């Protein structure tokens, strides 16, 4: 299977940790226990969502694994933000998924790992970006490694896990509530970090760009800067896709990704992150009748411009038909 090892799991607990965030506990139900993983890892869930027309639609989404289940065992936990503008995965989880439901979950993959040679770690989270960041804090605390955690949220109610984290890490943790006009004093935080410190940011794209930009202005070298640039793939205008080698032709729907359309057509295409980060889904293009909308963080600008390949998990075509060498 292209996504690697899959575990069959059952939803064992669902808890609303804030009005818009649910924590899910997913228990493996075929016997063996789940392997441990490193902080920053994600898993890909395969969801069979009901469509308005009464059919089902397969959605595969990546979610960061929480720090609570780092050691593996009977279950993994994730936290899911309800985002109505997404293609429906999170809405399905919030509104339809019930305790006892079974799904398929991929083995953990880590594209946002801790830098193990660092001497100190500065962790910054915005909103739901807290999920990998809190797992990092947990791993560092357990290993006795120095770190500080900065967590920004819109209002107190929306800050999932905030109380729990404050209790765990005390002075190493700071909260910023934008409704109370509190802003992360990024420059002050960055100015006094000793040599050997690494910075990790997970949150909205704007926040990542802002903080990494401030770090560069403060003279930090790029190798010390890390961000989880996971994209929730967006929908778009439908277009036709033809797979030259397998001779399959199909349509990419407006709420579907190119990768999902290829999978729905029965082709086992490669992927890992489904978020435009890992490069695994890179696919050669034979021809494109229209404009390529590259949305990934993997290809360089030059590669995007020359249009020889496309990352099927997040990118699409605005136009009539895309022919892939697949």
């Amino acid at each position: 299977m292209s996504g690697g090892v899959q575990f069959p799991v059952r939803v064992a607990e669902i808890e609303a940790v804030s009005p818009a965030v649910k924590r899910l506990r997913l228990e493996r139900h075929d016997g063996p226990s789940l392997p441990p993983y490193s902080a920053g890892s994600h898993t890909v869930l395969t969801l069979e969502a009901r469509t308005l027309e009464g059919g089902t639609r397969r959605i595969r989404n990546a979610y960061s694994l929480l720090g609570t289940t780092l050691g593996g065992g009977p279950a993994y936990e994730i936290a899911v933000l309800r985002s109505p503008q997404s293609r429906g995965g999170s809405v399905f989880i919030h509104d339809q998924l019930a305790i006892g439901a079974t799904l398929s979950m991929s083995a953990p993959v880590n594209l946002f790992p801790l830098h193990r040679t660092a001497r100190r770690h500065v962790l910054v989270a915005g909103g739901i970006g807290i999920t990998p960041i809190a797992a990092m804090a947990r791993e560092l605390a357990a290993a006795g490694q120095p770190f500080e955690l900065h967590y920004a949220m819109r209002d107190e109610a929306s800050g999932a896990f905030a109380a729990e984290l404050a209790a765990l890490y005390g002075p190493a943790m700071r909260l910023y509530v934008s409704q109370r006009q509190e802003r992360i004093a990024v420059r002050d935080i960055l100015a006094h970090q000793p040599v050997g410190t690494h910075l990790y940011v997970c949150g909205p794209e704007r926040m990542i760009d802002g903080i990494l930009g401030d770090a560069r202005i403060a003279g930090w070298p790029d190798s010390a800067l890390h961000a989880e640039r996971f994209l929730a793939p967006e929908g778009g205008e439908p277009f036709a896709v033809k797979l030259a080698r397998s001779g399959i032709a199909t349509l990419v729907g407006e709420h579907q990704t190119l990768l999902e359309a290829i999978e729905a057509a029965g082709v086992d295409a490669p992927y890992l992150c489904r978020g435009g980060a890992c490069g695994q889904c890179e696919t050669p293009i034979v021809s494109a009748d229209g404009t390529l909308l590259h949305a990934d963080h993997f290809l360089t600008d030059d590669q995007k411009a020359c249009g020889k390949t496309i990352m099927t998990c997040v990118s699409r075509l605005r136009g009539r038909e895309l022919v892939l060498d697949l």
Partner: protein
Amino acid sequence: MTLSFHAETFRDDYTFANSPAAIRAFPFPFDRDAYMYTVNIEQHVPGPVQSATEFPIHIDEHYVAEMRDRAITLAEDPLRCQSLPHMMTAEWDLLELLMTSMATHYPAHFTLSRDGDRWHWINRPMDVDQTFTFGDVSTLPQGPMEYVTRQCQGDFCLLDQREDNLWMDAGMVTSQADWSLDFDLGMNFMEWHAPVPLAHDLGVFERALKFLLNLQHGCPVRRLNWTMTINPRLDTSPENYHRWGIDKASVTPENVGDKVHLRVELQALWRLPRSNAIVFSIRGYLIKMDELVTQKKWARRFHRVLASLPQPIADYKGLGRFRDTTVAWLSRHDDGLPTSPGFAPD
């Protein structure tokens, strides 16, 4: 499977030899009559029964003697086993992988019982019975990597992943093809491969690295590599090259069959769960020319591979002083008939 272990040596009097079964299980590395560097990576899935790839970790009749040789090498040069401080989690991951695999596939020889963090390890061939706490270094006589690799065939490197590269930050390397862990420790994938000719320009390392960075837990891969060694010597390290280099000058047409060995490395790579590190195992197999030519197809093919080997590769592998003599000797075992595709003997 119950193995009977040879009492044999890999130095001084060199009494190492393969049984007929071990010859048949030998991972012959050529599936055609010529050799060039490629990204020869495949899934590390179980191979045929009684082959080198039947189980993820292969233990064979040479186990006890190889472990004894490793202990001698380590006593003379402790730097053959090193680990940078940030690799401790990866060391425990490695210990779990090796103990679990050995106990599962060779239950007659190894037993692992786990009760939470309390682990009990029994290694009958080496007469070891150890209870320890997983994750607590003070409960083992050595660090976890050193402890477990003193009891497992093959060399091992632990690679940390950062900055879109792999870093050789720990290892147990006592039977290497002329490279130094002590020197390469802390290098990245491109740096430690720097001395290899041709492959960089062919893009082999760039593609291999890209592939390995996305290696997934539960989906190990493997590849074969090879060189030639005079005498069945495991410790062909640069450290001791001034001791064993002279052996290359000792090859004569009369002693090729006994002295010249094909040395194959079955290299496997696993993503480790807690550390996100990769373990690279280098499981070495030796076979002397007299043993190799018992398989007609291998004799023909190895003759052709060695005769047509590109000069930069032959130089890099250090075959200069005995290549021609060996090719001449092998030519007597090559009747010119076509060879069948694939690695296996006919």
